[in-house]
């Protein structure tokens, strides 16, 4: 971490940790600004930009038209010319509107220009289902981003990690996506008052264990932790790892764990098929093949869009129960 944490940690909800992270970036970096749909006057549709307009004014906290391609493009152009934009993409589902700017401009500009461009841009976005927002407002599309050389991708699950990821992303001089979770807005957690970084590319062993490894990220971390408690009953001492950063991925931490536990499972909220869990599972079997006592299991959403109904959505999103059940299945219990 970049600086000592002198202040006491307070308990803050996830949403307030986000705001505090952005606020401290704006205080720290005079060329940083925040732009997005309804981030200024309304303080963001999730409240995550609350108070920033009042404190920093219209020059640095900017409401944009509903033009996702334009907004990301604005961020790319401003970053390439010396600003440090923080761009908000209200729902991760809206990536489709700006995927060219993300994939072909933001991710590739530095490389295509032989290193001549530097793009210190942070994109904040909200993923996740669970609020009956149906197929176009509930997706977790991190797999698309992780497949794109040139981007860094973080997916913080806790208030502490949310604030520290945003600060780390904004201090990094590369394009970084910070994928937040809309179900977690009210989740409380300890958050130091001073600015701090959650280091990019370093996984967190959230729960040490000895004979089973779960790699879980985003909101699924919390479900996995509950599942881990449940598995204790069967003598399973689960190590739960939150990679926090998906790209660059901290392979070493995961492999070290699996070499110790010999069994692993990946958990994410995204559709399981061709999800990022596949990459992690593929890596584990490549790099710890001789240590594995069972196939690497994967938990993710089934192969359908996210359904709206309260009668369906809870059966779509993985949870502690389904995670524990899949763990038992894979462990032969």
């Amino acid at each position: 971490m970049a600086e000592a944490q002198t202040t006491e940690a307070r308990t803050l909800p996830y949403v307030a940790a986000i705001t505090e992270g952005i606020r401290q970036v704006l205080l720290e970096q005079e060329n940083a600004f925040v732009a997005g749909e309804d981030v200024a006057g309304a303080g963001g549709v999730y409240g995550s930009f609350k108070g920033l307009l009042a404190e920093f004014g219209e020059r640095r906290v900017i409401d944009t038209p509903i033009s996702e391609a334009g907004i990301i493009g604005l961020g790319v152009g401003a970053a390439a010319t010396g600003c440090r934009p923080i761009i908000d993409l209200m729902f991760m589902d809206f990536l489709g509107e700006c995927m060219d700017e993300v994939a072909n401009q933001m991710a590739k500009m530095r490389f295509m220009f032989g290193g001549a461009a530097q793009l210190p841009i942070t994109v904040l976005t909200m993923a996740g289902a669970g609020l009956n927002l149906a197929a176009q407002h509930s997706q977790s599309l991190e797999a698309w981003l992780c497949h794109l050389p040139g981007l860094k991708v973080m997916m913080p699950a806790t208030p502490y990690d949310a604030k520290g990821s945003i600060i780390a992303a904004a201090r990094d001089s590369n394009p970084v996506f910070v994928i937040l979770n809309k179900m977690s807005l009210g989740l409380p957690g300890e958050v130091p008052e001073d600015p701090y970084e959650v280091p990019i590319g370093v996984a967190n062993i959230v729960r040490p264990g000895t004979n089973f490894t779960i790699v879980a990220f985003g909101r699924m971390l919390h479900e996995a932790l509950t599942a881990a408690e449940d598995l204790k009953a069967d003598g399973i001492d689960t190590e739960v790892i939150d990679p926090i950063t998906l790209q660059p991925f901290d392979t070493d931490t995961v492999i070290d764990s699996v070499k110790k536990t010999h069994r692993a499972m990946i958990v994410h909220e995204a559709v399981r098929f061709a999800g990022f869990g596949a990459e992690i599972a593929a890596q584990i079997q490549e790099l710890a093949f001789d240590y594995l006592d069972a196939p690497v299991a994967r938990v993710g959403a089934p192969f359908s869009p996210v359904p709206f109904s309260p009668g369906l959505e809870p059966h779509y999103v993985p949870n502690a129960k389904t995670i524990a059940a899949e763990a038992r299945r894979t462990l032969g219990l």
Partner: protein
Amino acid sequence: MTSQPNDDTLRDMHRRMVRIRHFEETAGKMMEDGKIPGALHLYVGQEAIAAGIMVHLADTDQITSTHRGHGHLIAKGGDFNRMYAELFGKATGYCKGKGGSMHICDMDLGMLGANGIVGAGPPIAVGAAFANKFKDNGAVAVTFFGDGASNEGSVHEAANMAGLFKLPIVMVCENNGYGEYTAQKNHQAIVDVADRAAGYGMPGVVVDGMDVVAVYEAAGEAIDRARSGGGPTLLECKTYRYYDHVGVRGMGLSYRTDEEVMEWKKRDPIDLFEARLSEQDIMSKDDMAAVHETVKGELDVAIQFANDSPMPDPSTLLDDVYYVA
């Protein structure tokens, strides 16, 4: 068609507006009662637009809608039972509970869906209009989008293609002055979205969206033009939404003044129209009251139907992802 609406048409439009108004007011209550999960975007205040346009359309004509889509479906003839069931997430709903408010649709009525993506409707409507021209079936497509949506690239691309191919389509901008919490002056440097029509080689028309007869006339002209091979029109209807962007609060919002709301409500589309209908002796107060009562009765039935309907069975989750022959 570009002539004045006859008495039957006036009564028809009145009924459509009343249906929307009560449906939406009731939906607001249901939301507050915790009956409607997810997000609810109410159409109240904008009824004259849906009614004045849809009355020109047959079931074979198509529309695409927005996140604020109930009014469009109702005006196109939507079934209250299936609508409420969908809003409640029930198996008997229009989408079997899979879509909810933001994806409500009725393909048999040519209602190609509400849409959770701002600006997504126009390209799809262009496709429907293209298919109409391809099949030479005389049908017209109408696409609704907001002032906020007009800044999405997809709307631009759709408009350009509509103009280029001279498609049988009417592009209706429901300009209610806000995109979410952002006033129009903070999302575009123009007052009339219709000014963009010239850039697509189509006529741009501005109409008072609170006056159903004005909407009727302007829409009639545009739809006639589309149907007879004269190509598209950009029809901008100036209007206002009474409630918040999402949910049911109407007053005391930070991004607009209560005075502004009250000013617009003085020109409430239903009040205005009812005054005119009674002035012109087309409907008596009693006639109108009867319409309101009938609609309310239908809503009671619909809510009962929705309440009594089962949730979709979890086993249906993977149905409808693909068509299986």
